């Protein structure tokens, strides 16, 4: 009975985690909720895991739990990957801001914004003339 309460608390915390993750990644939150629900069910009705294991052809209930645990681990890995991608997006925004703020010091031949009208060359004029007549 003690183990059942302990596992219930752990799985309830998974629910809380899923709730907090929902805004960022609904898919991960949904998968975590399903896993936690299944876990809670089997904690309180362990004999059902054996019956379900026999039904799906796994054999023993403990094997089914083990496979489920592997699935949960993969979900956790996926979530970590998504969090890393999120962090990378933030780093990208930061790096871009820094890069754009330093354009002046890197500028080569082209002129700054206030003088960035196209160089009025014969080539440019002729292209625009062709465009208008098209």
């Amino acid at each position, binding site marked *: 009975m003690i183990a059942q309460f302990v596992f219930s608390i752990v799985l309830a915390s998974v629910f809380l985690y899923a709730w907090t993750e929902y*805004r*960022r*990644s609904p*898919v*991960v939150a949904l998968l975590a909720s399903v896993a936690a629900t299944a876990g809670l069910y089997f904690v309180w009705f362990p004999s059902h895991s054996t019956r379900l294991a026999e039904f799906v052809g796994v054999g023993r209930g403990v094997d089914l739990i083990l496979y489920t645990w592997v699935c949960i681990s993969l979900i956790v890995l*996926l979530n970590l*990957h*998504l969090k890393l*991608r*999120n962090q*990378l*997006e933030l*780093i*990208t925004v930061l*790096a*871009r801001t*820094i*890069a*754009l703020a*330093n*354009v002046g010091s*890197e*500028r*080569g*031949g*082209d002129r700054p*914004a206030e003088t*960035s*009208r*196209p*160089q009025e*060359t014969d*080539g*440019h004029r002729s*292209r*625009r003339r*062709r*465009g*208008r007549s*098209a």
Partner: protein
Amino acid sequence: MVERGLPARLWVIVAAYNEAAAIARVVTDLKRDRYQVVVIDDGSTDGTAQIASAAGATVIKHPLNLGQGAALQTGIDYALSQAAEAVVTFDADGQHRASDINCLLEGLDRERAEFVLGSRFLGHSPNLPPLRRLLLRAATLFTHLTTGLVLTDTHNGLRAMTRRGAQAIRLRQNRMAHASEILGQIAASGLRYVEVPVTIEYTAYSLAKGQRMGDSVMILFDLFARRLYR
């Protein structure tokens, strides 16, 4: 109808990472045609930025290597901040022809499109390896199934877009998946797009720098992963 004409303020965006061997010729060709060129140096360690700057380009340096998609978005942001009326994306490895830009711009004008996409299959692509041709065909089918766009070429870095088009693009795929992401955003924007024939010149250098078979798996994974979070 109001005649739109070709864009007066045009920026050519070149995303470059360790392209010291090719960037000078690319920038020189573009400058010869009087285009305003911005090179986004994506954390190169081989002096790409200095070479591009010496060739006459405006250079923006990423403090670290982020990927081609991130570099293109930086270039688009910069061009928009410079009141660009249109932008062109152009590869740094020398496989695009500066002369094709004119065809893209005429496409923007003539077809009244917001996006003009270069197609090597409508134009020419000498030395295109058969395996890559097959991969590109598969990518075209994938793009049609996922976005509904009817295209002949999907991962072609030579494109033009109007200011309105550029404002509809917000690339979040830093690496190669941006080429598919941009098409998804074009489809989502509902803005008019056309394809025009261009020439892609494959050289030993550009083939060595280009995508590989394994990259397509990563692109698919990146596109899938991007759908799993906000």
